[in-house]
């Protein structure tokens, strides 16, 4: 095997911060090379150097690509050489068709006039290559994230890709889609496309990667070959310490029943007659961590949001009880007053005001808690925020920092602080560790453990089964708007959860969303 890419001693300095410090990376032709590291370790910066987002001259060190020194002035330069990066946030235009998106900026045209028949035909070929069975004229926004990811890859293929860089490609995908994507990566590898994958998910790295480079604090720590890859070793290199247990030790001590939902149903907000939640009953005890497992799109988030002030759906039916007494959860304010908090899965879009400082985000759901006669006490606001900064170890120079500047894990801690300040008895955590690196995940788990020990109830929705198995005392399994099973900690396993989902009415739900 020959070397396709060699990055030597790459150093990139931002004002006041050394983002990369003499990082080296060697990628062999035809391999899948994984890059691991905590958020903020410098993975993305390194890829931006490679793809020309940071042009030659704005960093130190050299890049040898295909035997030649690489001196990109822009992304266009690197794309011309076959280096293509697919970012975590997909860059597709939702209102345009697959074909229009595929050749965006690279149109099949003569003299500026697009030849649609040819474009459609080429699109069809590319879609077949990535195994996507959709017409080229389909509108991208109507397809699921999994399919959109495939379109991005097809787009890369249309540009004669030689080195494909995927930045956390499966972060937003459910398991079946993620599996398909990994299969496609292996197939592309067999066609000779060299790939770099950035991922937090260690199981998928060990599945597809030939070699792994671990980056920590802006330096490359180690490069491991396939035979050396083990999850524990990777985690150790990433965080620089041993994590004997990925989940904090806790002795479950559930008390009386805190939160009960009985026969809860609701309809789709727009499509008349489509029932989304179908007679769900569940309960959470004090001091208990209860999980809801299920594939994406099976109504878990919809269930949580419909319970939290009817933030989702209409035509709600059913009873919600706290401490055995029925409570009114018809508005968000009433739900908060009843002692319920909902920590959203999409913290950037639904949880935070990114351009505002930490302290204003923390006080937002309980402004009256820092006010007297509706007048804000800003000193108290700062004290509250400072208290949570210490308690949850939010890493920031100060609570006046805008949350947009924080890493994913620290943003999640801000959202948690915001809801803790409403002093909830029950916290519904929707994908609490999505897009968060391993070290910060452990911290979030520890916070959950502390909450349970304080006697609060935690209802946790997650698509990562190991996390549910590691944290929960009980797990409900949900499918197509219904609870299809309940497993105790002792009974629960990935196989049993999947079996409950798959056996539900004999339907196969593992298709692409």
């Amino acid at each position, binding site marked *: 095997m020959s070397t396709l890419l060699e990055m030597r001693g790459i150093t990139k300095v931002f*004002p006041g911060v050394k983002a990369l410090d003499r990082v080296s990376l060697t990628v062999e032709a035809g391999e899948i090379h994984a890059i691991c590291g905590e958020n903020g370790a410098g993975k993305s910066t390194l890829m931006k150097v490679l793809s020309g987002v940071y042009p030659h001259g704005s960093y130190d060190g050299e890049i040898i690509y295909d035997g030649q020194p690489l001196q990109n002035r822009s992304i266009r330069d690197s794309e011309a050489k076959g280096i293509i990066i697919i970012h975590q946030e997909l860059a597709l235009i939702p209102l345009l068709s697959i074909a229009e998106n595929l050749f965006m900026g690279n149109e099949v045209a003569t003299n500026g006039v697009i030849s649609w028949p040819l474009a459609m035909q080429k699109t069809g070929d590319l879609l077949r290559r990535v195994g996507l069975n959709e017409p080229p004229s389909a509108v991208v926004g109507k397809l699921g994230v999994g399919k959109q990811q495939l379109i991005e890859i097809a787009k890369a293929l249309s540009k004669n890709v030689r080195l494909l860089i995927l930045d956390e490609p499966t972060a937003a995908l459910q398991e079946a889609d993620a599996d398909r994507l990994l299969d496609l990566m292996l197939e592309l590898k067999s066609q000779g496309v060299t790939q770099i994958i950035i991922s937090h998910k260690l199981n998928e790295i060990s599945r597809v990667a030939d070699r792994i480079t671990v980056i920590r604090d802006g330096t490359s720590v180690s490069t491991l070959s396939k035979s050396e890859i083990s999850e524990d070793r990777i985690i150790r290199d990433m965080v620089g310490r041993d994590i004997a247990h990925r989940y904090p030790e806790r002795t479950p001590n559930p008390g009386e029943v805190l939160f009960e939902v009985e026969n809860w149903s609701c309809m789709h907000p727009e499509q008349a007659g489509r029932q989304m939640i179908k007679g769900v009953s569940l309960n959470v005890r004090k001091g208990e961590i209860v999980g809801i497992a299920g594939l994406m799109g099976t109504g878990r988030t919809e269930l949580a949001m419909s319970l939290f002030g009817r933030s989702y759906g209409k035509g709600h039916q059913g009873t919600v009880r706290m401490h055995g007494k029925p409570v009114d959860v018809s508005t968000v304010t009433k739900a908060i007053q009843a002692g319920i908090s909902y920590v959203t899965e999409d913290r950037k879009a639904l949880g935070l005001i990114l351009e505002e400082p930490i302290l204003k985000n923390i006080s937002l759901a309980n402004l009256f808690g820092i006010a007297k006669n*509706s007048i804000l006490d800003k000193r108290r606001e700062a004290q509250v925020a400072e208290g949570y900064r210490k308690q949850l170890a939010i890493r920031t120079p100060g609570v006046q920092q805008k949350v947009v*500047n924080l890493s994913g894990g620290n943003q999640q801690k801000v959202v948690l602080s915001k809801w803790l300040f409403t002093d909830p008895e029950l916290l519904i955590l929707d994908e609490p560790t999505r897009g968060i690196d391993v070290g910060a995940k452990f911290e979030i788990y520890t916070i959950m453990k502390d909450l349970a020990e304080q006697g609060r109830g935690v209802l946790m929705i997650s698509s990562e089964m190991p996390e549910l198995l590691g944290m929960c005392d009980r797990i409900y399994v949900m499918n197509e708007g219904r609870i299809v099973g309940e497993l105790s900690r002792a009974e629960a396993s990935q196989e049993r959860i999947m079996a409950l989902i798959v056996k539900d009415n004999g339907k196969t739900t593992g298709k692409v969303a």
Partner: protein
Amino acid sequence: MADKQSSLGGHLRENGMLLALVAIVALFSLLVFLQGKPMFLQAPNITNIFLQNGHVIILALGMLLIIVAGHIDLSVGSVAAFTGAVAAYLTVDLDLPIYAVIPLTLIVGGLIGAAQGYWVAYWRIPSFIVTLAGMLVFRGATLWLLGGQNIGPFPKAFQAMSSGFIPDLTGIGKPHGLTLIVTAIAIAVVIWIGLRARSRDAEFGITPEPTGLFWGRTIIIAAAMAFVGWQLASFRGLPNVLVVLAVLIILYAFFTENTVQGRRIYAVGGNYKASLLSGIRADRLVFFCFVNMGVLAALAGMMVTARLNSATPKAGTGFELDAIAAVFIGGASMAGGSGKIIGVVIGALIMGVMNMGMSILGIGIDYQQMIKGLVLLAAVIFDVYNKNK
């Protein structure tokens, strides 16, 4: 690190606007001097800046709330004209006394705001569309109510709203004693508020702005206030308009920065969905912003009508653009969620000083429009450049 930068950036923004205002005043003073005309910063001119631009500041206060909430109101010029006509009709045709006319007109303004806000807040119809419709409807309604004629003149009491001055309770007469006392108190309050904010910054561990910068700015502001106060006192004293403006500015600055509902309006504009999930009734707040805008438009409408001493079908043309420009020059974001009352006031004053300066210099209305447009563009470019840096 980033914290320091962002706070410095924030200081830069506000100080930059103030500096721009000072520079523009200095520029016109110089140009007027070079033309050999009477001094630019003399008492009648200073008085007139407030008399002629009071309505812009008032409209901009309401417009800031609307823009912060993520909306826009294009109808304020027409609404001001219509409410001005209503006030004229009530005063001249129905012969109602001023203490009945003012509340009635404000209520009419509030109802108009409610009628528009209802569609925006509860039906989620884009505010651009609703208020564009309102702009046409209320321009037409003004013509209808006035029958294409001017209504006027007004009794003295009504005119005093825009052209009156506060009485000198000290009895000194010249210079106006009460004006001097009010000025001195205002300067003391400004310094006290500045020092208090600084000590609070230190307490919260926020990197305070450099001491020199703080005192430099405070001294400039205090000196400017002392100068304006002295000039006004030596002329006819504090105009009623300025008193109304000061009260409103303090009220709105306090409301936006120190109250629960004020903070919530920023949250609604900053992230609508997140605000809903935090238990904020965004629809009610948006509705409130429009009602508030309607009331302020009515106040501005009455002031303009009183100043012109007649209600005319053409009144209020372009007011909405002046108000919107003041808000954006003052640093609010088009996307909503940010902007400060003090910035808006400085923005409106910049526009006002330029209007007056260019008129004194005899610059034609054609060039005036072009220059004002470019200043608006430059202010926003300065903002965007600062953010990207």
